[in-house]
């Protein structure tokens, strides 16, 4: 335990040094009106809309029934920073337990961050409340993984998609809502006549469309998609992905696309971040990550993806990692990946590697010159035969 505490101290300067995230132009709103006005302001395409800085979420582990005392913490997210630009899709990949879903909940302010900031148009949403927070909620929406549990089985489709309007009545006047719901159904490719049906009367893919329609209802700017297609059949996955891409263009949306399926993430994302045990291991454009990965974890992850093509498969190098992901309650010292890494040396146990452009590539315009949190970063193509 003492060991990990020391590491956290060592980590702090690291987070500050993250170079490739743009500077945050904070907005100091004195009144709620100003705050809401700032939230409603337009952001140009390609400008940062959401800026995450040193975000930390620790879930306390407690003992005792009435008088709880803390005996440790699950470090689900442990200091990550990234920017989301208007109109882009940022993919976040990682295995179960890497903290990617916790990131989604933090961005949705469904969980309170232990430390760090999330700036939405210059305002830290982790500190907002009241009308300003409601305005943020309207603008950041979410699509869930499981279409079977994310829709209330006792409500009709019309009530489900119309609920956002009831919570935010200013968006649509009462008489207009039914028509709006039917429009939304049409937009996501469902028959508007289905408005009075119940979720269990639909298939998984159709339900996911309903979930997307609910997410679109308030005309948000950002949609956070937490594994939106992983529960769907292959033939339906493509439909939903295409729908989401179409909607992005139509409504000028920015996506954070969280998934474990690397192929789908590549397909939909402009930039990709790879997470491991609560930290960002590597982040860059899709070509940089997939064709020029420099972090050993990314390389292992990519090489393990089963490719539906036995011929190209044969030429590929496969890195099979040993062991399992360590517990986030007690992560390894130094680099968190070192326990499964074939390159690990003494340095990896002592120093936390910074998420930065590796020195050897710094200043070059090689695609390998993107941020990677490894002491021994080197390029290795594992995807192409």
């Amino acid at each position, binding site marked *: 335990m003492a060991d990990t505490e020391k590491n956290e101290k060592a980590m702090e300067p690291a987070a500050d040094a993250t170079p490739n995230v743009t500077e945050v132009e904070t907005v100091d709103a004195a009144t709620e009106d100003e705050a809401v006005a700032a939230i409603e302001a337009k952001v140009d395409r390609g400008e940062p809309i959401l800026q995450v800085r040193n975000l930390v979420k620790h879930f306390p582990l407690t003992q005792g029934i009435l008088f709880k005392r803390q005996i440790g913490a699950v470090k689900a997210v442990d200091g990550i920073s990234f920017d989301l630009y208007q109109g882009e899709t940022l993919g976040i990949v990682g295995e179960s337990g890497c903290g990617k879903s916790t990131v989604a909940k933090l961005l949705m302010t469904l969980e309170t961050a232990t430390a760090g900031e999330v700036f939405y148009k210059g305002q830290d949403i982790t500190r907002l409340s009241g009308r300003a927070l409601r305005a943020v909620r309207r603008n950041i929406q979410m699509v869930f*993984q499981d279409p079977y549990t994310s829709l209330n089985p006792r409500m009709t489709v019309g009530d489900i998609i119309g609920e956002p309007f009831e919570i*935010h009545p200013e968006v649509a006047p009462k008489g207009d809502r039914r028509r709006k719901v039917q429009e939304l159904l049409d937009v996501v490719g469902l028959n508007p006549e289905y408005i009075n049906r119940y979720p269990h009367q639909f298939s998984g893919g159709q339900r996911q469309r309903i979930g997307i329609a609910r997410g679109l209802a308030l005309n948000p700017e950002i949609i956070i998609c937490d594994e939106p297609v992983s529960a769907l059949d292959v033939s339906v996955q493509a439909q939903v992905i295409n729908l989401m891409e179409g909607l992005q263009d139509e409504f000028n949306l920015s996506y954070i696309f969280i998934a474990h399926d690397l192929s789908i993430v590549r397909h939909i994302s402009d930039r990709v971040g790879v997470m491991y045990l609560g930290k960002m291991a590597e982040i860059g454009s899709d070509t940089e990550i997939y064709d020029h990965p420099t972090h050993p974890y990314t390389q292992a992850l990519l090489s393990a993806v089963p490719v539906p093509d036995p011929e190209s498969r044969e030429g590929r190098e496969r890195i099979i990692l040993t062991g399992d992901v360590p517990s986030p309650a007690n992560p390894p010292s130094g680099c968190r990946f070192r326990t499964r890494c074939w390159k690990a040396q003494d340095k990896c146990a002592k120093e936390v590697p910074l998420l930065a452009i590796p020195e050897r590539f710094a200043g070059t315009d090689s695609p390998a010159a993107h941020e990677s949190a490894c002491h021994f970063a080197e390029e290795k193509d594992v995807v192409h035969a």
Partner: protein
Amino acid sequence: MPDVTKTKAGTDTGVDAGPLQAAADAVLAPGAVSQGKPRSLWGDAWYELRHRPLFWVSAVLLVLLLAIAAFPGLFTGANPRDGDLTNHFLTKPELTHFFQADWFGYDGQGRSIYARVIYGTRASIMVGVGVTVVVTLVGGLLGMVAGYFGGWIDSIVSRIVDIFFGLPFLLGSMVVLNAFTERKVYVVIAALAFLGWTTIARVMRSSVITAKQADYVTAARALGAGTGRILFRHVLPNALAPTIVVATIALGAYISAEATLSFLGLGLADPTISWGIDISDAKDAIRDNPHVMLFPAGMLSLTVFAFITLGDAVRDALDPKLR
């Protein structure tokens, strides 16, 4: 009963549903694809219920019992309190004299057993329904609050529930009733409800905990929904089914508890008419005149049976695994 807490049919990832069930669901899932008319889950449950003969048996019985409780005068012309000692309980039942005062014979004080059985229904039903209503409201509310808010609220409520749960139900009610000299129906209701709410509170708490973890609750929170909306729109409708089942079955148990207390002389007392009192009165005559005991006891069993059967039928209908 634990089955009903799984409010929604298992999904492919449903850990508790087991691999077989998950597979079967996966097979049947596409079968649901946008067929026909809108069909709510309550509607589905009602459909299931309608197709169960046991439901109809208990429903017919219950309607009859409620009618008797509400309008006993429609079912008998005799006065249950009129004692005519010439009719002392030596008079045997006249089983062919339908709906007549002497249909079931007379008791020790020459009162029409038929009339007493009819008039006794009201007290039993009132106690059963009354206790159930109080218990469901109190227990349901506490369970819901504990389950939804968790934390120290849950700790405190759960400890109180545990303490009450530890007190023996009948013994506790007897102690409470002993403190009252006037034993009207509402006193008995209060005494039984005093200790009876814990079961409902527990059931409600656990189903609320299950329901509040569902993704649709998270989705509502993400939209900015307030606590009231989440609780009453999303959590409660999905947590209600187990409580309904438990409450229906418990209703029968409360009726028999009332009879037990009355039999022991601690429940209702004269001039209230109750099956329990009549059973108690009959206990000395049972060897020679079993009919004096038979009819109130039979009525009691029939009523309890009707409620428990209804509870069973409702549980089957609400259990998504059979769908």
